[in-house]
């Protein structure tokens, strides 16, 4: 069947367009919501790790507290209604767009990630990633977008016209650029093993054996570089509140600060999703390579596929949340590195290991082919 409607002289197929719009709304709302919940999870996790209690006061309708999750709403409302202070010495135009420059690339990265198994319905194949597979960008896209995150931090610090902010921007830019190389080297080994850089193909290639077991060293390099890329402890040099006030955040207030914070957590969600996709089999469930097909055989063609899709989404969400929690857990365990240690680890440890990993798998593949 072919439902179309004509708009401005174009024949627009309804089902794919509606599906695309639904995906965009669900994914963006989901990522924003999750990153907002992560701010709460961070506060609560920090508190519990440090033997405190954490946020538990905000009430919603009577005495309903739910472990303080309504502090989210309180924080958000506070940030929105706070005075939006723009200091006199800042570069106004850059100061206004800096939060957006941080926020938009952070939101864009997630678009390529498949968050569930593709399924077929009425001659259409529905892919559960905002950008459909075989688009020619594949996993290069989130890496390229992640590289743009530097501009958010650097613009924010430059616009602030403040010595501490400036230091933070310099540090942040330097370490993010240097760790990007290690990150990319680790990912290239994954591409080689999958034979493609499309996320759907990478996930298919991990059937039976997740890349984390096939390439443990590459995973470690990716993990360490991911911490640097997201500006999380032990590499949070851009913020560095004990050394340079709050770094690039110093002059920001109100919702601008909210956007900068939120973009940090969205980065965290995106990089967790990438980690799940590249190394933990994406939506794959262990010992269940094709949940949609399997459940269709079990439960018939009516409920089976939907349950299978939901199951694959749940598996992906579980992996995603586990990584998000891991980021929070590490943040409250490790202190910050010294700056020279950071550079040492980036250039003299992660880069050589990444190269060695790449060459090793290249050699393995070459030998298998020969």
């Amino acid at each position, binding site marked *: 069947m072919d439902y179309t409607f004509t708009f401005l002289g174009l024949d627009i197929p309804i089902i794919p367009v509606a599906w695309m719009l639904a995906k965009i709304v669900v994914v963006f709302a989901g990522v924003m919501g999750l990153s907002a919940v992560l701010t709460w999870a961070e506060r609560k996790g920090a508190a519990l790790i440090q033997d*405190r*209690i954490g946020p538990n006061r905000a009430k919603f309708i009577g005495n309903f507290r739910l472990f303080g999750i309504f502090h989210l709403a309180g924080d958000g409302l506070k940030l929105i209604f706070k005075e939006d202070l723009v200091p006199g010495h800042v570069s106004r135009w850059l100061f206004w767009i800096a939060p957006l420059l941080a926020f938009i690339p952070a939101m864009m990265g997630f678009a390529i990630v498949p968050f569930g198994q593709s399924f077929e319905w009425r001659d259409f194949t529905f892919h559960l990633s905002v950008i459909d597979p075989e688009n020619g960008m594949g996993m290069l896209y989130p890496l390229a977008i992640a590289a743009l995150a530097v501009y958010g931090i650097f613009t924010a610090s430059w616009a602030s016209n403040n010595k501490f902010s400036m230091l933070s921007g310099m540090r942040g830019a330097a370490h993010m650029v240097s760790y990007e190389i290690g990150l990319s080297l680790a990912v290239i080994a994954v591409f080689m093993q999958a034979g493609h850089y499309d996320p759907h193909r990478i996930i298919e290639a991990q059937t039976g054996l997740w890349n984390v077991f096939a390439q443990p060293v590459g995973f470690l390099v990716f993990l360490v570089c991911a911490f640097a890329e997201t500006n999380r402890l032990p590499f949070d040099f851009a913020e560095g509140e004990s050394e340079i006030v709050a770094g690039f955040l110093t002059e920001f207030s109100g919702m601008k600060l909210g956007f900068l914070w939120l973009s940090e957590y969205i980065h965290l969600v995106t990089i967790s999703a990438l980690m799940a996709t590249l190394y933990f089999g994406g939506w794959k469930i262990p010992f269940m390579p094709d949940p949609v097909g399997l459940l269709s055989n079990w439960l018939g063609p009516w409920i089976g596929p939907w349950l299978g899709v939901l199951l694959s989404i749940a598996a992906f969400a579980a992996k995603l949340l586990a990584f998000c929690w891991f980021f929070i857990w590490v943040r409250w*365990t490790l202190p910050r590195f010294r700056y020279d240690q950071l550079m040492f680890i980036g250039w003299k440890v992660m880069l050589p290991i990444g190269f060695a990993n790449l060459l090793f798998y290249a050699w393995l593949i070459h030998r298998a082919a020969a």
Partner: protein
Amino acid sequence: MSVVVKKVDLTWLDRTYLWPIAKGLTITLKHFLKQVFKPTPKRLTVQYPEMKRPVLDGYRGLHELKRNEDNSIKCVACFMCAEACPARCITIEAEEIGDINTQQGLLEKRPASFQIDALRCIFCGMCQEACPKDAIWLRKNYELSCRSRFEMQLDKYDLMNTYAGDDGRERVEHIERAAPKPERQPLSNQLG
């Protein structure tokens, strides 16, 4: 004397960073799990308005003017407390008692007004030490919030009722007062 700091030789396992990081992660995870499954009353943090720590003996909180069994005031307006007070927060006006108080023998004086400026009070307990009749006590109420400075100017009847609820005694109202209650003045006026 100089202290020789021993240099710890790191093993190759420690120098990978990864093993020590894993050890650190288990420590924080242990703390996390312990705290998650600990019921709130057993946690170190006291959830204040709902839970309170027991107040220690000898704590000096808000004052109470003690009463006799017939609810008349114990204070004989001897001014010892006002003299002892280092913060000068007690202001007493004495009056003669017309009728004979049989409970406490023959008393001639009592305070017509007894004001404590609780904002000025430093809760040192000197008034309690000085009192020959044991008529003023500093007890355990430490929740002294109010909406205006004026509410912290406590007069005789406020002070006799401060712990009426806690002790289960009835409140003493302004019945036994001969003169109408004087308007409360800010302390600066009283010091003149």
